[in-house]
């Protein structure tokens, strides 16, 4: 497009989860005519089935619009809708680097919440112009005055020129669009003679290969040019450049300040790095763009193909998937129970769940996940320190001097009446309250110091349930701290199934062991033989359940020669069995691997 740079506005929409970002984007797309009425659906940018089903945004979604301002000019708006959940804040961080402005949406019925604070800080760190937008003013429970005051006090954002909209009815959105022209700065012209584009995301298209998403900081890109990836020095030829509407569409060129994608002769997903700088072979830049701070995965688990022969397929899928989600890390490993697979790191539990689900759906991978854990620092008697993210590699107790576990600092915003329950929950999770600040007359922000391991499995769900959905949480990694951590094994028919091994605090081991044995004994179907399910620390059995043998699985009568129906039932039974992971003689269904996570200890 190579538009006049003064007519380009790049901005993202940031907010706490469910405050209405995607719905606001809908109205903007409608008002600018970017999407025709017949193609419109609620949260149209949430294109993934998974996003639609769960009603949440998982990926940042860029989209370009043309907006005719009252000043008579037509502007190019490049909007990026971002996710609100804490696990996906890396998506927000990358989107911010492609923008000059941010619409900070705050639900006027809810007020400032944990991600409102966290995402505002991200935007301020990047010097983005912030436009505060109070949303859901159509609801009678909205409280514009009080929420405005919160924003001023907690975020120090002046609210004199705040916007009041209803993303649902569209009220106030036209004014907001007009204000974007005046308040979001146009991109800087960039350096003449250089071309630099920041790769802030990418996808893989089966027909076109890797499609990096870029923001042009200097120069321009068009088909036919030779480009170079600055981190690898590999060169490619550009085949196509384009923008999003929200589906990709080709344009003749991408100019400085613009946001779009390109397709080049890139063969392998591994050749593209998110945060890399693309430069032109004929306009080489000396210096890459800052890129992104590396994110550190906090939660680890093993991912294994259900069918051992699908290892290569899982590998290829993870590589392609990684392009669209650069926050995951993975490394090949093996398990005696599950064969060959990968140890993967995730930003949080929802992230872990979403990655697994996307691998299943988008890449048709039948996978099972092992018990998630965190990275421990194990100090050996020899003085050596090992980082352990897989219980299988835990050194023998006799070699261990002590173990340190990662701590987090969590900020929980909740209603006054829930403080007691939430403090109880924090204490159950071996945490301590550090600070209490009031947000307004009804709400407080609790700052707590807790072991990361304790929030990995079900903290978020329990927080939601004790607060009837109202509490919100954000957390950051704090320091490591010495803790009495033990390795707990699960045995089926007397054999350790390494996939279920986990590292737990000694005080929690009994309860966790009982819980795991119970869930497993419910999730593993009866076999032709009795299966003892045991939890053990070393040789010490701490919990036990028994799966009784089944006695009856018979079709008494095949009525009137209806063999087909019966055969189909047997075939289904066989299919069900095939989807189980065979460990020794015991078939473990995929649900069992999920079921063990649903502990209530």
């Amino acid at each position, binding site marked *: 497009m190579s538009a006049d740079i003064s007519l380009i506005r790049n901005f993202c929409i940031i907010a706490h989860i469910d405050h209405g970002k995607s719905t606001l984007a809908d109205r903007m797309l409608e008002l600018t005519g970017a999407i025709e009425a017949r193609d419109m659906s609620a949260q149209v940018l949430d294109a993934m089935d998974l996003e639609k089903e769960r009603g949440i945004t998982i990926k940042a979604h860029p989209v370009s619009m043309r907006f005719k301002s009252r000043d008579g000019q037509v502007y190019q708006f490049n909007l990026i809708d971002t996710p609100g959940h804490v696990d996906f804040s890396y998506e927000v961080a990358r989107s911010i680097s492609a923008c000059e402005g941010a619409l900070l949406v705050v639900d006027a019925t809810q007020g400032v919440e944990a991600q409102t604070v966290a995402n505002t800080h991200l935007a301020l760190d990047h010097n983005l112009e912030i436009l505060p937008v109070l949303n859901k003013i159509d609801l009678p429970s909205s409280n514009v005055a009080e929420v405005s005051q919160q924003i001023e006090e907690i975020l120090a954002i002046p609210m004199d020129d705040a916007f009041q909209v209803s993303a649902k009815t569209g009220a106030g959105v036209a004014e907001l669009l007009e204000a974007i022209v005046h308040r979001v700065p146009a991109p800087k012209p960039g350096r003449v003679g250089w071309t630099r584009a920041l790769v802030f995301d990418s996808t893989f298209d089966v027909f076109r290969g890797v499609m990096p998403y870029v923001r042009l900081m200097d120069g321009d890109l068009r088909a036919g040019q030779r480009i170079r990836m600055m981190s690898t020095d590999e060169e490619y030829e550009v085949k196509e450049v384009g923008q999003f509407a929200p589906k990709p569409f080709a344009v003749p060129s991408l100019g400085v300040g613009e946001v779009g994608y390109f397709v080049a002769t890139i063969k392998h997903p591994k050749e593209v790095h998110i945060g890399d700088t693309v430069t032109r072979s004929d306009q080489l830049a000396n210096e890459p763009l800052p890129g992104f701070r590396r994110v550190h995965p906090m939660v680890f688990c093993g991912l294994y193909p259900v069918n051992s022969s699908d290892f290569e397929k899982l590998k290829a899928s993870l590589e392609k998937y990684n392009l669209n989600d650069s926050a995951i890390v993975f490394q090949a490993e093996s398990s005696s129970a599950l064969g060959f697979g990968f140890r993967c790191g995730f930003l949080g539990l929802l992230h872990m769940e979403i990655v697994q689900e996307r691998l299943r759906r988008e890449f048709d991978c039948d996978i099972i996940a092992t018990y998630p854990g965190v990275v421990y620092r194990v100090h050996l008697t020899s003085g050596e320190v090992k980082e352990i993210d897989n219980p299988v590699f835990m050194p023998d107790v006799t070699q261990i001097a002590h173990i340190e576990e990662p701590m987090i600092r969590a900020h929980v915003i909740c209603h006054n009446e829930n403080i007691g329950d939430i403090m109880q929950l924090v204490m159950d999770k071996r945490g301590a309250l550090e600070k209490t600040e009031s947000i307004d007359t009804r709400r407080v922000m609790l700052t707590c110091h807790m072991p990361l391991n304790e929030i990995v499995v079900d903290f978020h769900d329990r927080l939601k349930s004790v607060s009837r959905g109202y509490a919100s949480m954000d957390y950051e990694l704090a320091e490591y701290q010495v803790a009495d951590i033990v390795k707990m094994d699960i045995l089926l028919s007397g054999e350790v199934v390494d996939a279920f091994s986990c590292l737990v605090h000694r005080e929690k081991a009994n309860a966790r062991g009982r819980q795991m044995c119970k869930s497993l004994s419910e999730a593993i179907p009866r076999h032709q033989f009795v299966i003892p399910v045991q939890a053990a620390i070393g040789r010490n059995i701490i919990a036990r359940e028994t799966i009784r043998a089944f006695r009856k699985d*018979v079709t008494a009568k095949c009525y009137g020669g209806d*063999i087909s129906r019966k055969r189909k039932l047997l075939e289904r039974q066989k299919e069900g069995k095939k989807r189980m992971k065979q460990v020794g003689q015991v078939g473990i269904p995929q649900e069992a691997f999920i079921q063990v996570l649903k502990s209530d200890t």
Partner: protein
Amino acid sequence: MSDPGADAVATATPRTGPRPGLYVHVPFCLRKCAYCDFASEAPPHPDRIRRYLACLDMELGRLPADFRPGTVFLGGGTPTSLNDEAFARLMDLVAPRAAGAAEWSCEANPRTVTAAKASRMRAAGVTRVSLGAQSFDPSTLSFLGRAHGADDAGDAVALLRDAGLDNVGIDLITAVPGRDADALALDIDRALALDPRHISAYTLSIEDGTPLAALVDLGTVKPVSDEQALAEYELVRSRLRDAGFVHYEISNFARPGSECRHNLLYWSGGEYVGCGPAAHSHRGGVRWGNVQTLEAWADVVSRGWTPVAFEERLTPEKRARETLVFSLRRLDGVDAAAFRAATGFDLDALCGPEIARLADQGLLERTATGVRLSGRALFISDAVFAELV
């Protein structure tokens, strides 16, 4: 509508092996049993019976002239729930088709056997009658919602014998909630006292959509535990073996030589053609099923079309696996040579490793000529079949 039935019946080249069977479904009962999910309506309405017989006439009439079944089976529903006159008409319709059959079975409800029906069966050529006694205990019968009393079976057997129908089989039901093992033992004794040549003992299964299932869902009825169901099964096995019966199929026992040949066709991958609503057929490599309801079936048949609701043609491997698992229902198991002749597959090439594993687990036994279920696998046979299908 495609016409696999007529097609297969007309063009199938006669194959070696047993002659095909003919199944006729009679979709009426005196009243609906509490556990029943079979295609039948109750009580029989004269107009519906008339329509049924008229359409059955047409459907039978469309069988190829040279279709000569080796076995015939009249089932349902309850064929004898028709009154004497309608029953006579049913016999008249089926008899020409049954001519030359080595075995002709008819299912009967103990209360609905009359002298007239018995002599009519005998005259038409029925060779064995399968009596749905289920139990001889009044409270069990009423729990099951059966339309007959405890003594009706004895009376029915007498009437049948009087008419010269000696080959009588009795159906019993096991795993009935609320009935204890002693009551079952008594039922077995009373069945044996009637000197049947064949006994089918079916484990009660609780099928979705039946009144019994509703009671279970409500918690009013507690299904029999798997352990008790197995104990009852073992009780039946040992009692009948002691009485000189051969246990020849998972749920079937017979005096030597009195096995139901028609049912053996089902288990051995044999061919049969079914007439009447919800009847199933297997011929010329095609399996098909008739439409379920009487109205739909009658409507289609009276227009001169074939009442096929579904059909399937299996790949040779699927067919072979199907033959394998259904043949394993027979206690003498599968003969490897016969299996190869019938399916073209070598047993070990098809599923050697699975057979070896199941044999290791004590669920299958190698015999001199093939393989069979072990005694302890009988009651968990679906789990075994699911490995092989």
